[in-house]
């Protein structure tokens, strides 16, 4: 390349001006295109979000109406009540248990899927996607039938001499239902991240005399971390706020956060408490998202 001549620079200037005007026009067009969706989400997501926060600072009068004459932290204080606290801890514990079970079961599955030939991989992927698309309520109901008093499970247990195992309406049934419901959410991100790992890295670690455990611990595990975190968030958040599964499979003694929140708006009419619990859920969700994206930026 030689130095540009004057005649080559001149049209450059004119087109820069044109370019600027074009960019401004493009920007306006882009905004116009985004506006309906943007507006909709502000109206039906951001405004409701603000309303939940406002209600969580309200108080409930004798008639169950929410009052706002003073901003109050009452509802948040009541989160420490023994009943509410128990429900919070139970929900957290069951959500963590569900996430851990899903992770332990899904990890070898996802690894195996990444090692089989392409056509098997596609078949496995489809077979994981089908439950993911299948109606959630129906999938929970199927377990209700199976675990029921005269259902197939009790037939089997009495056949092998275990007698009647009463699983339905316990927290174990809820965990079972949530694992069943959310397992695809763990498998898919795990598979996506394990599949991207270069196999030579694992081979190299073996060549350098790493034991299988060491090469798992120091190569595979750190490299698949985005999938582990992504999948865990995708399982943990819906488990924590689960409503349908505990209502169908859980018992009256094992109320979880989801049902308790809904009850504040339907039966108990304690909107500030229900709102405060929703805010807690939102904060946990935001916190996990921040963790996820921070991990993401560290990696890239």
């Amino acid at each position, binding site marked *: 390349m030689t130095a540009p001549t004057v005649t080559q620079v001149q049209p450059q200037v004119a087109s820069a001006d044109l370019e600027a005007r074009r960019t401004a026009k493009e920007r306006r067009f882009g905004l116009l295109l985004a506006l309906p969706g943007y507006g909709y989400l502000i109206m039906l997501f951001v405004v409701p979000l603000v*309303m939940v926060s406002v209600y969580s600072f309200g108080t409930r009068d004798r008639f169950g109406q929410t009052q706002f004459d003073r901003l109050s932290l009452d509802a948040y204080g009541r989160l420490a009540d023994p009943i509410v606290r128990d429900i919070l801890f139970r929900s957290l514990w069951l959500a963590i248990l569900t996430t851990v079970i899903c992770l332990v079961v899904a990890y070898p599955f996802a690894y195996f899927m990444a090692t089989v030939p392409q056509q098997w991989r596609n078949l496995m992927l489809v077979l994981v996607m089908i439950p993911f698309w299948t*109606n959630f309520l*129906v999938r929970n109901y199927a377990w209700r039938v199976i675990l029921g008093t005269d259902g197939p499970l009790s037939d089997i247990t009495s056949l092998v001499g275990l007698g009647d195992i009463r699983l339905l309406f316990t927290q174990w049934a809820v965990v079972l239902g949530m694992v069943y419901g959310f397992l695809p959410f763990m498998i898919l991100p795990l598979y996506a991240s394990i599949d991207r790992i270069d196999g030579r890295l694992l081979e190299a670690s*073996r060549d350098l005399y790493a034991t299988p455990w060491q090469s798992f611990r120091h190569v595979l595990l750190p490299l698949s971390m985005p999938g582990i975190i992504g999948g865990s968030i995708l399982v943990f958040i819906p488990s924590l706020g689960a409503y349908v599964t505990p209502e169908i499979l859980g018992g009256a003694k094992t109320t979880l956060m989801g049902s308790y929140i809904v009850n504040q708006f339907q039966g108990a009419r304690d909107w500030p408490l229900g709102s405060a619990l929703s805010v807690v859920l939102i904060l946990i969700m935001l916190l996990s998202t921040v963790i996820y994206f921070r991990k993401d930026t560290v990696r890239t």
Partner: protein
Amino acid sequence: MSRLPVTRGRARLAFQANVVVIFVFFYVPIVLLVLFSFSASRNAGEWGGFTFAWYEEFAGDRATKDALQASLKVAAVATAVSVVLGTMSALALERFRFHGRRVFDALMYLPLIVPDVTMAIMLLLFFSEATELLGISRGFGTIALAHIAFSISTVSVVVRARLGGSDDRLEEAARDLYASRWQAFRHVTLPIMMPGIIGGGLLAFTISLDDVVVTQLVTGPGWTTLPVHVFGLIRRGVTPLINAVSVVMLLGSMLLVVLALLVSRLSGQDSKYIH
């Protein structure tokens, strides 16, 4: 890129056993449910000979049929609106820069990760004030508005995945060859997006038919969708009728999966143009 090392010997057997157990776990409950829907026993979980009786009962059950109709109506409207809004948003976010783009981008993801229960409470509070302001009554309108609120993001994410994998120089090339903005959109961008639009639409339809808790909290008297109706029935106890209704819902889901897989397969074939 090099494949991951394949496990051998006993470890491989353990991996295979894990896969088999997971698939049995996934599919046996569904198969049993289908089986029991043809069982003559009054007990929902017991085999008592073959019958079509529960499907006949379903066909004659006014409330369930009304709920099914309502569900399809809500899902159709919610899908149509969210496909249009979601596609426009995806195009704007993927192909244009504008003020507030980053905020919009982040906002788009939130409805996907907010738990259903929270979304339900948010919308319940919103409609408790807004129904008077907007002059709408609780029922079809509020359910559809709520479903659109969580479906726009779904459609947008799916369409964006499709657009993001494509090369925007294709549109530039079309413009260089004197295509108008509209022509470039109509003949280049739209065909690229189409599998994403259809896939996102199918997903939005599925999610609308899946929803229980949001619908239950924003609905009004006299309006119920099939999942909410069935949920109510289940809470009163399992019956063979619910088995039959569930299997019908299952068939609906399967139909949507097959369509979605077909779309992704077809879009896989033309993907050589958009790598």
